[in-house]
């Protein structure tokens, strides 16, 4: 707890300087939100931290940034507060034991170990239900693994993660808006969706100063590439389910079908976007408070294994590739609430809270 106090005290010190200066008011929502508060409690700082999209415009504009003795660096301190919040709001606080790997590895390679375990389990299930020969089938996914087994495999980790994140979201909303806060209104939600979809607060009223001091749209565009790539992949899944369950057309689907086109475009976009963001992160100056490539690697792997299932679907390798893709899905989806993925949850709620607060100050 002492470390947390130090973190919040430091954030309070820096933000108090910001509040006495106010030059950055025009960049994003963080500074107007700061100015509405004369006293900064820990919950306020967490809310400001999640409003911050780390565009760094304020850092480069700050005459009090290091080497000045005031050493003001809002994006840095706010990113540390954000990370502390991710840990605080996740309940249970740690991913399930099977994702943490053997204790002696201390988490290193835990996810790879878990994915291997899941893949092995899937192979056993396949062997027990359809016979080991099903692994070499290339007549569509259900020749490899039965539909109910596939559904359970994917839905279990998804449901778990959604539950953990919903609980975290409820706690965050409670802290950000106070114990008597009702649910957000539709107008605030809609506006927040539009802001989030366009990454409004990453523009800093122009463009993001990332990776260097020069304003550049690179990060915003790459983020959009990953985000809309992910959305396209989800659309591929939904459209495939529609074709199968409503229209009664079983997979595999032709190259010029909605699932294959959206899946391909989405998968390629995710791979390119994740790779691009990782390169930007490597070159960012100043370096992020805690560089974490986990989410980018995970999303990249999801897309990559997904693309492989498409490319190799007519070969005998299809079954094994499908198992690999499913194992990646299981592990990535199960660990989701403990990765940077949750930024989407908190940032979205922070924007909703900010929009609500602006309409009705106090």
């Amino acid at each position, binding site marked *: 707890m002492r470390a947390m106090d130090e973190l919040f005290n430091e954030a309070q010190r820096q933000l108090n300087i910001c509040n006495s200066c106010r030059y950055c008011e025009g*960049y994003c929502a963080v500074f107007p939100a700061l100015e509405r508060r004369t006293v900064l409690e820990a919950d306020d700082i967490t809310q400001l931290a999640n409003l911050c999209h780390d565009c760094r415009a304020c850092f480069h504009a700050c*005459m009090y940034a*290091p080497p000045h003795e005031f050493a003001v660096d809002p994006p840095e301190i706010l990113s540390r507060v954000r990370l502390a919040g991710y840990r605080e709001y996740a309940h249970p606080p740690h991913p399930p034991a099977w994702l943490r790997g053997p204790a002696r590895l201390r988490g290193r390679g835990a996810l790879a170990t878990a994915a291997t375990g899941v893949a092995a389990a899937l192979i056993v299930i396949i062997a027990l239900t359809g016979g080991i020969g099903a692994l070499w089938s290339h007549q569509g996914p259900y020749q490899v693994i039965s539909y109910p087994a596939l559904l359970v495999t994917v839905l279990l980790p998804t449901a778990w993660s959604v539950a953990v994140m919903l609980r975290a979201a409820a706690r965050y909303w409670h802290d950000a808006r106070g114990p008597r806060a009702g649910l957000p209104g539709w107008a605030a939600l809609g506006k927040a969706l539009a802001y989030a979809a366009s990454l409004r607060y990453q523009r800093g009223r122009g463009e993001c100063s990332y990776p260097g*001091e020069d304003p550049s749209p690179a990060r915003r565009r790459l983020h959009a590439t990953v985000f809309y790539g992910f959305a396209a992949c989800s659309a591929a899944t939904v459209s495939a389910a529609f074709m199968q369950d409503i229209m009664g057309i079983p997979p595999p689907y032709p190259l010029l079908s909605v699932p294959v086109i959206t899946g391909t475009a989405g998968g390629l976009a995710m791979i390119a976007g994740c790779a691009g963001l990782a390169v930007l992160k490597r070159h960012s100056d100043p370096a992020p408070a805690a560089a974490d490539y986990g989410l980018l690697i995970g999303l990249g792997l999801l897309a990559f294994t997904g693309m492989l299932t498409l490319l190799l679907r007519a070969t005998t390798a299809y079954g094994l590739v499908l198992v690999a893709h499913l194992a990646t899905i299981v592990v990535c989806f199960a660990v989701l609430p403990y990765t940077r993925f949750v930024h989407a949850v908190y940032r979205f709620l922070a924007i909703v809270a900010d929009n609500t607060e602006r309409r009705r100050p106090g």
Partner: protein
Amino acid sequence: MLIVERAQAPMRGGNTRHTRNIRCVHRRADEFTTGSYPFAELWRDLCGVGAGPGDRRLAELTVRESETVPAWMSAHGVRWQPPLAGTLHLGRTNRFFLGGGKALVNTYHRTAERMGIAVCYGTTVEDLVMAGDRCTGLLTADGVIRARAVVAASGGFEANIAWLRRYWGDAADNYLIRGPRDNDGRVLAALYAHGAARAGEERGFHAVAVDARSPRFDGGIATRLDSIPFGIVVNSAGRRFYDEGEEIWPKRYAIWGRNIAEQPGQIAYSIWDAKVARLFLPPLYPPAQAGSIGALAASLGLDERAVAETVTGFNAAIRPGGTFDPTRLDDCATAGIGPPKSHWAQPIDTPPYYGIAMRPGITFTYLGVAVTPQARVLHTDGRALRNVFAAGEIMSGNILSTGYLAGFGLTIGTVWGRIAGAAAARHARNG
């Protein structure tokens, strides 16, 4: 072309890094200003500051040229924002650039880099190498940088405490300097040594009341205090000495820097109570706080009885029936007390009580070099140096000699930077 910059890159740009808006003539409202600000009005505002313009011809030129400045700034990459919170009274006359002065300096440097202009960081100009009335180069620690024309844009001498002591004596030791420590007037002194003529007042400076705990140098905007009109100000003897309700922001800033500079020990204490505690910009450092005036005085190191007497006398002198309104010159005033508090006078009677020690924070000095309308530096013999030009605070004493008009320092800097730059470029090309 080469920029010789005393500071390293993060601290470049001198006092400009602390600016936030610019005051220019404009004919109509636009996205970032709320109304027109004609030539005649800016001229009138300028004449109302201190003793008025030093050199009327140069001052008029500055105001006239200011009209084309915003478009020029936009063309060089500068972006704008609506007036900052708490600065609505400047929304018509002053135009705020996005992110403040350091963002402005960064933008100019990016533009300069695109134009292929190099910068020598961390390089101090020790002296000008002169051959008669021509400058042939600049002397630095790494040797002489040869030049066909030179623009001195190196600011005033406000960070040179020894120089300030010549005019202010020991009091200078108690001044805080709001800009970088590098603003020591070295180039200004070198120009004087080569016979440059003076412009501006020796004791001319712009100063505001800043938190006494602020850093000695480079504290900038965050250190200034906004509490003065909401309470009273006492000196080290615990006595009031000036009308705290005389003027609305921003003129009061300029008044109070000098007021405090004239008090014993160059220190004064702003005191207010819980009623008004949230009505002004939060101070940078937490104020002293106590349940009684006596305890507050003690924690500020003041005589408890003297401060308590001052507060009792002040509270008793408040005319009843006023309506407190911090957004305008209201009708809350004192009667039969000297000095009076002519606006926003409310009894200091609601604990907890708050207090902060204040010092004069010097923003810049006005003493500089005299120039021609082409920004050429004048010699004391009345002739101009052939290829030495000046822009910004180093020549602002031609235009303002005392007092201050918010945002006009940058107007002087930008207008004269353009004039000097163009004249120097013409001279370098044509010889």
